[in-house]
């Protein structure tokens, strides 16, 4: 599980994240919904220990992201959107093995796991070919296998479908669903409501570095008496116009 406590990040002039509190239970998918520049990536980077919080902290399966960063990284897998970040001159297998080894996997366990992932993601044909000439969809699958190879209990997704066509986006969404079925704790950031509605149990709306509303989709609908899409526009859009 993830417990975020007063997390804050100040870059030189910008206060990107202004002290947020959130918790995500095991087996739960939390959608972090916000528009461009809201602070989603910054929040997820702090959780992944790549950025050091200015204030506050978070516990990931009880491990502190500030005090115990190395241990935290063993608990998480990340899939950040945009470019996929594979090594073109390595084969699919080598790309995945690299991350497996850096996550301290035993050789036998690693091989078993890679075989399993190659099968369920249907990558068998091209596991030993260099990634350079792969299509975007093929690369996406390798990236998925790479982020999950060490079977982390917590997954962080930052706009993982941005820039993907419908088919590739569907592969990613299917993957997130299967993570959920496996009982992982998941945070998933997005700026499209539709995707959040499709995948998430709970949603937190982030705006200018603050959580402006959080709750499960159903109870939010009841509370405000309107669609979550409209609610999002109301909470974020109007303030935006000022």
């Amino acid at each position, binding site marked *: 599980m993830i417990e975020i406590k007063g997390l804050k990040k100040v*870059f*030189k002039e910008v206060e990107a994240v202004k002290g947020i509190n959130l918790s995500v239970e095991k087996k739960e998918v939390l959608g972090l919904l916000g528009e461009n520049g809201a602070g989603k990536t910054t929040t997820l*980077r702090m959780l*992944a*220990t*790549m*950025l*050091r919080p200015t204030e506050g902290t978070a516990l990931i399966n009880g491990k502190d992201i500030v005090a115990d960063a*190395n241990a935290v*990284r*063993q608990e*998480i*897998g*990340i899939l*950040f959107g*945009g*470019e*996929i*970040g*594979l*090594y*073109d*001159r*390595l084969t699919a297998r*080598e790309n995945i093995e*690299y*991350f497996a*080894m*850096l*996550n*301290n996997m035993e050789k036998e366990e690693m091989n078993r796991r890679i075989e399993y992932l190659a099968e369920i993601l249907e990558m068998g044909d091209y596991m030993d070919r*260099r990634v350079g000439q792969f299509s975007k969809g093929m690369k996406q699958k390798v990236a998925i296998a*790479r*982020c999950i190879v*060490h079977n982390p209990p917590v997954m962080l997704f930052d706009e993982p479908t941005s820039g993907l066509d419908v088919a590739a986006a569907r592969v990613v969404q299917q993957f997130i669903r299967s993570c959920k079925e496996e009982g992982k704790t998941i945070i998933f950031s997005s700026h499209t409501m539709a995707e959040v509605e499709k995948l998430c149990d709970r949603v937190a709306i982030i705006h200018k570095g603050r959580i402006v509303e959080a709750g499960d989709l159903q109870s939010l609908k009841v509370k405000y008496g309107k669609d979550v899409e409209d609610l999002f526009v109301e909470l974020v859009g109007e303030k935006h116009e000022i």
Partner: protein
Amino acid sequence: MKYNHTMIVFKKELKDIFRDKRTWIASVLIPVLIFPLMFFLMGLGKANLDKTMQSDIPIYIESTQENQLTEYLSRSSGLIVVDSASPYEALEKGEIKVIIQIDEDFQAKLEEEKPGGIKLIFDEISNESSMAMSVVDRAIASFGEEILKDRLEALGINPEVLQPTSVSYEAYVPEGQESKGDGVSVMLLTFLLPFLLMLYPVVGGMPAAIDLGAGEKERMSLEPLLSTGANRMSILLGKYLTILLASIIGVITSLSGILIATRFNTDMLPKGVKISPVSMLIMIGISLTMALMLSGIMLSISIFAKSSKEAGTYLSPITFLLMIPTYLTMFMDVRTIPNKLFFVPLLNAVLLMKEVLVDIINPVHIAITFSFTAVLVVLALLFTKYIFNKESAIFRS
């Protein structure tokens, strides 16, 4: 730690860069080929020049009266007097190398025992013409000597009377050392080797440095990499070692290039040059510390850069920076280098290499140079570590 993450990173990066043909070109192909090629081309030019100089040099003599000199020159070996309707055009075309203008009253003056005027006209642009002129000059001088001898004999004077000294030359070679060959080859050697040992760590390591720092950012693989179970320092160390190895390979391949080059063309490099084991050790030591320092600097600059292109822009001036001390010291006298110059980083490395190449082993210079360079290495490594831990460098936007 059960797993050595540094080794995992090191092995992966090596595999990665050696699958890249740019690495092969920059660290292996160019260094191995550049010197043989350079020497081969220089040799070609030189051989050509030698050939023309060995055949008879065509000259043209402009004189109105018969005289002894014209006759002497047409007899002397190595010169051939040619006739030409337009000698100056022929000189410009290189068909004639020198035009000799002999004064009208030359023969008369000779007989009066007064200096006779001669003018040598040559083409200043042509190397061959300049060299031909000195050959003609020598021929005229020996003509003069013959005349002189005749005149002295006529006066009953022994020519030796006019030669009070007889000078011969010998280079001093300290006991236990060997001759370094002539001055030109010493200069070539003491310029070329330090130049290579300074420059090739950068030439060899640069493609790797760009790819492992900025390249990782550019393909967006840095974030996933940093979020693995490995800690940052192991990742950094693995990358650093890869660049260091590429640098060292660059140095080794360029030195092998020189060795190959000397096989191609033996007279371009000093013959029988022997570098003593101590000197060799010191040279290797300097090159290694340079590689240690420069790998760190290149990696930190590359990590700071946003893209490979930006990294390339920042890194290429380093090559010029390293050329400065090698050119500055090109004409410096190795015997009288002031001690204070050894406190100047980079310059001291070049100077020390120049010294040990001619077997000057000065413990003070060695100690100063190595301790200063060691400090620089440590600073470079600390700087690399600082940059790699700096959020604003890694996530620069």
